[in-house]
């Protein structure tokens, strides 16, 4: 009753491969396709591009010196105030109005954005790099965990103000000579913000890595002889991406605001050098009479942070293979 065994099995029609229909797709193309579908990310990216171009190219188009005082034209209102208040002091040559010393607000927003964006991005990226590196090292290598986390404790408990003052005393003059008053301050500010803000990222990344490295897929990777470096790069980092993205978004906002707090302490840029944070801080005491002076830089900061947040969301979704293609 044995069935004759077919010496050459006939392939089942339905299961036969018909050859590739499309050329193979690279991983990054998939990521991009997924990313493109994310409306928020596209909006965020677009806005970020717009605001970056605006602060980079804006001062070339709107050629008003943001530091130029015009005391007779002080306290002008933005042009749209004329819509409901015909007596308001407005003028097309000052579309966003002027401040209490007659400095043009539009020019200030544009050139202030340059400084704030530069400081925000540089400090955020630097602090993320330090934080992620320390976090991964501490979480992954047991020997370094103790020392690195105690270092984190140390940095968390350092009082910031004396630290700033020490940094200024030691480094301001050399940096000023090397990069000029504004450039030198830029490096000092970025450095200070970065070294005082990497600790939460480090602890968060470490916590996640501690849990992830005990998962089965890491064991599998290890068992096929993947080097520790590859494990971190290929298996661990992509899995801690989302908290890192959140840190990045929050870090950008914090860096922009912290910069303004630093200039209060005399550690920041020279006092006549506009930044968004400083414009906001200076305008708070007159926010009842001139609400636009707080609203304009406030919106600029909020929208930038919001668009980075959406960009991060989109990137996260795009990089998650489980979501991709759904």
């Amino acid at each position, binding site marked *: 009753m044995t069935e004759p065994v077919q010496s050459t099995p006939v392939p089942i029609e339905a299961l036969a491969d018909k050859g590739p229909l499309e050329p193979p797709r690279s991983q990054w193309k998939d990521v991009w396709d997924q990313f493109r579908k994310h409306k928020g990310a596209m909006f965020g990216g677009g806005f970020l591009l717009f605001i970056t171009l605006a602060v980079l190219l804006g001062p070339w188009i709107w050629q008003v010196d943001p530091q130029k005082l015009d*005391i007779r034209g002080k306290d002008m209102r933005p042009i749209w105030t004329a819509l409901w208040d015909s007596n308001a002091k407005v003028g097309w040559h000052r579309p966003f109005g002027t401040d209490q*010393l007659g400095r043009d607000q539009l020019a200030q927003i544009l050139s202030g954005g340059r400084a704030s964006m530069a400081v925000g991005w540089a400090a955020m990226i630097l602090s993320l790099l330090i934080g992620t590196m320390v976090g991964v090292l501490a979480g992954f290598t047991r020997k370094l965990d103790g020392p690195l986390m105690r270092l984190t404790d140390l940095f968390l408990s350092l009082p910031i103000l004396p630290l700033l003052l020490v940094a200024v005393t030691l480094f301001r003059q050399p940096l000023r000579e090397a990069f000029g008053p504004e450039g030198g301050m830029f490096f000092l500010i970025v450095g200070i913000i970065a070294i005082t803000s990497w600790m939460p990222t480090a602890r968060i990344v470490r916590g996640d890595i501690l849990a992830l490295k005990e998962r089965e897929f890491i064991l599998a990777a290890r068992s096929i002889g993947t080097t520790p470096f590859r494990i971190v790069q290929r298996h661990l980092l992509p899995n801690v991406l989302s908290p890192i993205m959140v840190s990045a978004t929050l870090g950008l906002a914090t860096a922009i605001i912290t910069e303004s707090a630093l200039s209060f*302490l*005399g550690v920041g840029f020279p*006092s*006549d050098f506009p930044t968004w944070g400083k414009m906001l801080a200076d305008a708070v005491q*007159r926010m009842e*009479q001139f609400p636009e002076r707080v609203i304009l830089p406030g919106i600029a900061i909020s929208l930038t942070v919001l668009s980075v947040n959406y960009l991060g969301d989109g990137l996260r979704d795009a990089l998650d293979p489980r979501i991709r293609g759904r």
Partner: protein
Amino acid sequence: MKLKSLLMGAVAATAFAPAAFAERGADGEVKIIYWQAPSILNPFLSGGTKDVESASMIIEPLARYNEKGELVPWLVEEVPTVANGGVSEDLTSITWKITPGLTWSDGTPFTSADVAFTHEYCTHPEGGCAQVTKFEGVTSVETPDDLTVVVNFDGPTPNPYGPFVGGESPILQAAQFADCLGAAASTCTEANFNPIGTGPFVVNEFKPNDVITMSANPNYRDPAKPAFASVTFKGGGDARAAGRAVMETGEFDYAWNLQLAPDVIAQMEAGGKGVAVAGFGPLLERIMVNQTNPSPDLPEGERSTAMHPHPFLKEPAVYKAMSMAIDRPLLVEVGYGQAGKVGCSWVPAPEAFASTFDGCETQDLDGANALLDEAGFMDTDGDGIREVNGVPMSIVYQTSTNAVRQDFQALIKEWWAQIGIETELRNIDASVFFGGDAGSPDTFQKFYADVQMYANTFNGTDPQAYLGNGLCDKAPRPDTQWQGENISRFCMEEFDALHAELSGTADMSERQRIGRELSAMITDNGGMIPLVHRGRLSAHSSSLGGVVLNVWDSELWNVADWHRIKSN
């Protein structure tokens, strides 16, 4: 006899006083806010204005200055003078007669022994007393009887009203502070936080750097005062919030020293719950011009010292032009409003000491440019900055962090740019800038900048010691650990000689003439550029009566007379 008549007088005063404040404690609570919180109630250990003024409600001096800068007797019957025999002919001693019948808030009598003890307390070598200069030159304090104090000086002292006069030099109770002399001062927390005094109020609870609650002194000398039964003295926050609490929300009755831009004050006053009041002492906002070279290329220890004179700021054309380029009325309008006047003199008040100079009130950019052109300081390389002997006129302009000062910096930078001077602005946290840390490059004494702006003043009405800030040997330098009051390192033999003459002169009008000359000498020779004569601006609620703003003494000097205005 005397005591009796005094008591009669007090009774009469009570009887005829208006009904509104006839009774002690009738007006309930008064709330005062200082945006700097008091940290101790013993002015001898702190010297901070906030501490001196809060303590002045509790402890009092023998005599103090009124709102016009005149001495008025406080715990004594009259102010001793040569005319009434209280000051000796040779000006070496002064005799105070204490009002009979005075008691401390604990009911014990106030005697000359307390006054003598206060001298001993402050002059103890290990005590670190902040007001020790008040007792400078005092050789002894004698107490012939319970109500007489004789202060002896080591030489003729034209102004013997240093010790025991003004809010900075109140009398402490000997019994309370007996164990707190010298190094033990820090261990007397209870006494420092709750001093027994003769003033209108006594401390109920003191929370350092936060709040003081006080109640009326049951043993206060005037039985009808104070009108308020209790005081809440809150500290902390910032000037804006303090002003708002008085003038906009009406939560508080009195806010101290509102250093805010005039349009901000005006906006608050529009709130309608309170009014701002201003008074003028000798406080002058000025730009100090460094006479020495602050270049960072010089080695540490030679930078900003007399070894290297400044490459161009000592040129008369330069400092004159810098001063001419400044629009002082505009600065007043932008920064201080009713709390500022154009500042033309190093000693802006008292009036008799104030000098002035031509063109102080008007800006003259063309004249300034012409002056520089004439002196031959031209812009030779076409970058818009003039050169002096090949050195470009680029200067660093530093000051402490403060919104008004940063506005001033921006304005002055702009004006100086118009006469071909390039300015780099720098602002430094006040605690570093005014701190005397010899290790920091950013203190105002080190002056590692070309010009710097701050305000200074003096206590009382006699500027002799203050004018001494222009003497050559008071310049901060490495061998004095960078301590010294001659910040601009101004040095002129004629000045030193004239100041010596002032110290030996007793005649008032002559002193005033010399004072004016000294003051003019420093401005004419480019030691400083006066900017704004600043007043003190405080606010009180519309319902608080009796406030007399006093800039020569504690602002709370007459708190006993404060009362609630009845709105009927």
